[in-house]
């Protein structure tokens, strides 16, 4: 029990090179699935431990915190760990079937290794309490992400991956500069230690610059509105499994970093009073919602469509942050959780379609509602959840967000958000129309339902979607107490 925090990261990490020794893809898949499940169980145990004993601190190498590297798990970390490891496990169930048609046979083993490394990177970013360690694990996850995206079948995948590499590296280097400036002013790299030492130098120009660089760097990774250009292509051309995994987790990790740096490291008073961060997040979030949703309406490829929708959802999440209240932060975290569930399901379902008909152009979907009823139902339910229809998980997070906005008396913002949801209705309706009210294309008449492993993983997420839409005790309680502890209130 004592070593859970480190095992959470090290088990998938050590499993990756072991896969190289196993060689046989079938075996490697089972092994990766097993490892991911173990990681999921560990994250649940960690959550339980956190909620009984409070923050867990684990000193690597037995060196005390500011000198050695510390792993620090509180409720926020535990929540993120669960999101990441759970989606990873569910997505892996379908992986074997999906990559059969999308990736050449001799690269299957390498695919699983990269997948595990990417999982490791994300888990590492979330668990660590050391600013520089964040950078190292960020690079592990990004490097594996670039290679995974480049494994896509079309040549556009290569170009998308290269663009992502350039943007991602600039972002990471910005974070590195920020960490360097911070270190120069305080002499420490440990987040807890930084948060104690930064207020003494908070008024200096250097700390302001450091903060800006870190925020911009994270926003590049996050694909916040004006910096989102790399995302749609990367999501659209990557292998379907990779898209499902990244759409559910990658932006979440970046948002975690944003919350961690603004709330914990720099502290509330610095982030929200010294800087106009609140207004900035609000404006960028709103613009992101409107622009990305409108762009989504005009997409011809459904993967592109939902990629733009992801950018819009990031907008919702950021607006929650900008309210600077416990309620708003709860909404943000809830939406993190719920968005992972619904986007995971949607992209997995798209993966199933790609498996059956070879691409994800909107035209090809016509009439598929009768051919692949379960898969299509999953896409529609996911879409409804994106809109925020009651009984789905999306409703809960939208509800909390609106409550938080009304609490702040931000009526215009609330109205704009409803408008954004309206745009969501439009693009989801386009898909519904094509799926159910059009005749199937000639070449798609013999299409059948997706393979069973696909259906298992898709419907696991859909059922979770309904469950968290109806029984909100678990998710709301968890996010609320995480938000309260971030604001320094005792839960």
């Amino acid at each position, binding site marked *: 029990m004592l070593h859970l925090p480190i095992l959470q990261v*090290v088990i998938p990490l050590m499993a990756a090179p072991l896969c190289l020794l196993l060689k046989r893809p079938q075996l490697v898949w089972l092994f990766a699935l097993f490892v991911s499940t173990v990681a999921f169980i560990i994250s649940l145990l960690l959550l339980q431990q956190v909620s009984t004993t409070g923050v867990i601190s*684990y000193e690597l*190498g*037995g060196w005390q915190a500011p000198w050695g590297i510390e792993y620090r798990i509180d409720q926020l970390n535990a929540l993120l760990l669960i999101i990441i490891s759970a989606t990873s496990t569910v997505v892996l169930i379908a992986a074997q079937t999906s990559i059969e048609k999308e990736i050449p046979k001799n690269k299957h083993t390498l695919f699983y290794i990269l997948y595990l490394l990417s999982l490791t990177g994300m888990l590492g970013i979330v668990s660590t309490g050391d600013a*520089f360690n964040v950078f190292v694990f960020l690079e592990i996850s990004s490097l594996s992400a670039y290679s995974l995206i480049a494994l896509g079948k079309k040549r556009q995948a290569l170009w998308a991956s290269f663009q992502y590499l350039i943007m991602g590296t600039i972002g990471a280097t910005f974070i590195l500069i920020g960490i360097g400036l911070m270190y120069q002013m305080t002499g*420490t790299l440990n987040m807890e230690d930084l948060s104690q030492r930064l207020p003494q130098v908070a008024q200096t120009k250097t700390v302001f610059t450091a903060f800006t660089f870190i925020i911009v760097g994270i926003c590049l990774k996050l694909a916040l509105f004006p910096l989102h250009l790399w995302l749609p292509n990367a999501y659209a051309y990557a292998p379907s499994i990779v898209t499902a995994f990244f759409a559910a987790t990658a932006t979440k990790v970046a948002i975690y970093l944003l919350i961690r740096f603004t709330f914990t490291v720099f502290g509330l008073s610095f982030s929200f009073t010294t800087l106009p961060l609140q207004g900035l997040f609000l404006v960028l979030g709103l613009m992101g919602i409107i622009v990305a949703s409108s762009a989504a309406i005009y997409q011809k490829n459904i993967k592109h469509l939902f990629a733009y929708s992801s950018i819009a959802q990031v907008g919702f999440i950021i607006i929650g942050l900008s309210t600077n209240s416990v309620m708003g932060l709860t909404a943000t975290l809830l939406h993190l959780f719920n968005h992972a569930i619904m986007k995971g399901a949607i992209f997995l379902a798209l993966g199933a379609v790609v498996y059956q008909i070879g691409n994800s152009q909107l035209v090809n979907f016509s009439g598929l509602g009768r051919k692949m009823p379960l898969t299509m139902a999953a896409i529609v339910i996911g879409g409804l959840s994106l809109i925020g229809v009651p009984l789905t998980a999306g409703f809960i997070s939208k509800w909390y967000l609106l409550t938080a906005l009304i609490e702040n008396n931000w009526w215009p913002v609330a109205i704009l958000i409803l408008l954004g949801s309206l745009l969501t209705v439009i693009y989801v309706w386009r898909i519904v129309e094509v799926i159910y009210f059009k005749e199937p294309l000639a070449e798609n008449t013999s299409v059948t339902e997706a393979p069973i492993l696909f259906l298992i993983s898709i419907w696991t997420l859909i059922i979770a979607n309904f469950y968290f839409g109806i029984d909100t005790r678990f998710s709301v309680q968890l996010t609320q107490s995480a938000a309260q502890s971030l604001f320094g209130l005792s839960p």
Partner: protein
Amino acid sequence: MNDLFAVVMLLGIYSLLSASFFVAMDAVDVAFTEAAVGAGISTLLMLVVITMTGRKENTKRHKPFLALIVVIFTGGLLLYGTFDIPHFGSADSPIHNHVTPRYINDSINEIGIPNIVTSVLASYRAFDTFGEVVVIFTAGIGIMALLSVAHHSEDNHKIAAVNDSMHERYLVIRIVSKILIPFILLFALYVQFHGDFGPGGGFQAGVIFAAGIILYSMLFGLSITRKVISQPFIQIISAVGVLLYGSVGLVSLLQGGNFFDYNVLLTDPVAGQHLGILLIELGVGCTVTSVMIMIFFNFAERRELQQHNNIHNKDLES
């Protein structure tokens, strides 16, 4: 400048100059690494790629004004940020007074090796270094996933024929490097095991070792080198390096300490630290060597394949 070859050479020179700057700034370990990596391996890799993609650049600028605005804005912000930075070389700035004094004053008692950089790298912040090894392992795997080609067995006569013709052309340099390569490998091993006392360590040693082998394969042909060091073999070595590093941590877990707590490896904590550092440096060395060789092999194989295809296409056309 639109000749990429010249640009790459200039980048190499820039790296070498910054390495000398690092020496002037007392960062000998970093200088060593920068010289080996920046001026050595990365220049080499870029040159290999240029031979495949052409060395002329289109001179048209892409978005000069946007770029200029971004650059001026970022630069201005950074400039603004520098005004409160502690002055260069001043001993009373926070970084010299908060965390570091413990490394400087106590590491000799706690770890027992004179090179503080190595003790911080391999013990106090061992997990960062583990991450670094995994990063390079990831890059190796990623490049393999991108570039690996199916193997076709080559017949020995052909190799011998090519070998002979090359022997004529590269006689001098072949003989000289035959003399030099053993020394390069020996030097790599020296750097590997001397990292506790002077600048050096697993990473630098790995790069030098890989450079020796890459030199050999450039002069004597890939196929001959591949007979000694086959692809699967390097892959296994790179995995073993990461596993070795990680299992040092796992063993310390089993012994009742925290992850990477070398104190519990042996009964005497300082000896335990020595053992731990030795083992993880070995792990780093293994992974770095094999990944570097792997990267070069994959690049060069791809290049051979391209040339082969080109010749084939020309035959078809004529």
